[in-house]
């Protein structure tokens, strides 16, 4: 069966989703979903292992060879992305059961639908990463987007509905732009296969249609990845979604959109066209810097901690786009390694917040007074995630910041490097606000709740420890990231 691994990566959650929907509410549904997520993680790990050992794997769907059929093509870049998404998918699924049972606006009989929707979202995200067909990217994008709107809308706060609706409108505009872009490419080249597109595009590159397609794709993907100033849907969506959903989406959805950006601009259009002819870096660099700076400042003034971290996500996306706009192996390594590291740190932070809201019912700063003493393990994980977010040495966050500063200095852009350091200090400020409230203010007298249950703590701490582990052993998040960057830039292979 090992030759079928690329197909199984997507098919396993796709089959598990309707099975979950058929089951009655209870433990069995979660067990099935958990087994599917664990299997996905195993498949992703095996795929990465095989790709690193043997090189690119291709899988022709339905036996139709490329470029006529849909081909799943796994190289270092997307094997690495598959691992991130499958890992977060499995860890958050382990975390999800108590949250779904108690902290979601969903009657018990409908709870199986949560797991089905979650698995469909995972299917879509994995499919977007693994496919080698431009139109297939759009199809999977819609699968993951539609299910993520539904997942966000079941948050306990009624405002989750408007947040999901806002995201639906913005996401649909983004997806439509992507579809128009792909359509224009198809009109000019007559193919949808990514490799085939890359081979045929140079002949027609100097036409208005291709330049328009490039513009549509840039805007569409930027909407999905929440690049400043197209990020307006993100803070509300993350703040009002159930904590498990926020942890899952924050760690995966925008990352996959960044991967799609990399795939289109480096593999399909080619770095020479995207950055040499179209000067994409001239747009991405200022937007990334503005996003990092403004979102970090806005985060400092938030009183809802979930919203604060959502704004911090916008800033972190800025770091990734900054790495891309450096257009060098070091810069891309920083961006790709930050995809992994940010998934770890934001997963930890949002899951820790999920533990807090599970016990005290809110995550606003005034309600969190003294939780450091009543929930020491939860806040311990939060602090580790926070240190990683700041980029303290020996945490995962340090690795990507290091490469980012190296990349900026390589280009001689020392003001950019200084800004990265300065905005890391802004992260210190907003994380410190939470730490101060949690540890240095007395808990209210009437609080009787204690530590979060083990079912929530275990996955949270798994990711927290991963933050420390990958801060020391960087063979995966920097080593493989470098190979992925080289594969995308087409050097060193």
């Amino acid at each position: 069966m090992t030759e079928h691994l690329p197909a199984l990566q997507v098919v396993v959650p796709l089959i598990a989703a309707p099975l979950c929907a058929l089951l009655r509410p209870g433990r069995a549904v979660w067990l099935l979903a958990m087994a599917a997520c664990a299997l996905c993680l195993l498949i992703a790990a095996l795929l990465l292992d095989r790709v690193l050992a043997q090189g690119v794997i291709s899988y022709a769907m339905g036996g139709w060879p490329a470029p006529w059929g849909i081909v799943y093509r796994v190289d270092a870049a997307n094997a690495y992305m598959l691992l991130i998404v499958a890992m977060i998918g499995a860890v958050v699924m382990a975390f999800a059961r108590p949250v779904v049972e108690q902290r979601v606006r969903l009657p018990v009989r409908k709870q199986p639908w949560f797991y089905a929707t979650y698995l469909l979202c995972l299917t879509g995200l994995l499919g977007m990463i693994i496919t080698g067909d431009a139109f297939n990217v759009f199809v999977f994008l819609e699968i993951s987007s539609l299910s993520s709107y539904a997942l966000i809308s079941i948050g306990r706060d009624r405002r989750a509905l408007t947040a999901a609706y806002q995201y639906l409108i913005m996401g649909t505009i983004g997806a439509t732009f992507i579809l128009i872009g792909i359509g224009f490419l198809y009109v000019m080249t007559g193919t949808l296969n990514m490799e085939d597109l890359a081979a045929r595009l140079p002949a027609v590159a100097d036409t208005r249609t291709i330049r328009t397609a490039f513009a549509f794709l840039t805007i569409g993907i930027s909407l999905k990845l929440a690049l400043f100033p197209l990020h307006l849907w993100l803070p509300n969506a993350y703040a009002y979604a159930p904590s498990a959903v926020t942890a899952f989406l924050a760690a995966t959805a925008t990352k996959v959109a960044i991967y799609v950006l990399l795939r289109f601009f480096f593999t399909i259009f080619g770095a020479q066209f995207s950055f040499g002819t179209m000067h994409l870096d001239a747009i991405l660099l200022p937007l990334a810097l503005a996003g990092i700076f403004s979102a970090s400042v806005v985060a400092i003034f938030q009183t809802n901690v979930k919203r604060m971290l959502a704004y911090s996500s916008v800033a972190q996306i800025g770091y990734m786009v900054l790495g891309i706009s450096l257009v060098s192996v070091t810069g891309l390594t920083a961006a790709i390694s930050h995809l992994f590291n940010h998934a770890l740190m934001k997963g930890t932070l949002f899951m820790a917040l999920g533990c807090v809201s599970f016990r005290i019912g809110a995550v606003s700063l005034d309600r969190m007074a003294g939780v450091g003493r009543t929930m020491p393990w939860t806040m311990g994980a939060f602090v580790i995630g926070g240190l990683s977010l700041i980029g303290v040495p020996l945490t995962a966050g340090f690795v990507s910041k290091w490469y980012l500063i190296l990349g900026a200095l390589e280009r001689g852009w020392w003001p950019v490097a200084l800004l990265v350091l300065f905005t890391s200090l802004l992260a210190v400020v907003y994380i410190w606000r939470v730490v101060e409230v949690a540890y240095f203010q007395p808990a209210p007298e009437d609080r009787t709740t204690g530590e979060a249950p083990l079912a929530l703590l275990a996955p949270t701490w798994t990711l927290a420890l991963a933050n420390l582990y990958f801060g020391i052993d960087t063979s995966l998040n920097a080593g493989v990231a470098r190979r992925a960057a080289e594969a995308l830039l087409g050097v060193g292979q």
Partner: protein
Amino acid sequence: MKQYSIPRLITKLLLPLILLFALYVQFHGDFGPGGGFQAGVIFAAGFVLYALVYGLDNARRIMPPWLLRVGVSLGVLIYAGVGVAGMLLGGAFLDYGVLDPHDPVHGQHLGILLVELGVGITVAAVMVSIFYAFAGRGR
């Protein structure tokens, strides 16, 4: 609704034709325009018409929500099941050619027929579910 006898009568006359046409679009999809998506929507439109004229409660008696719940999932399972069958018989995922060991062309026909059937079931069930969800609001 007792007094609207003409719409009730016309609906009764039209309903079998709509459902039959849906099945034609479904199973003739190999050879002409059509397929699971279109057929599913036409099939669901028949139920929507029935519910509009005879009321939501009568429609729910014919197509109860639990059946929709099964239908929504069953279609996806048929689709993915055909794909996995291709895998188990030695081909790639969704390789219909291996479904019939003697004649790959026959296998292709069988495969696409089953896959489109799955699509049709899911689309029809989803369309009726959406209609129920909107029509049942505030009850």
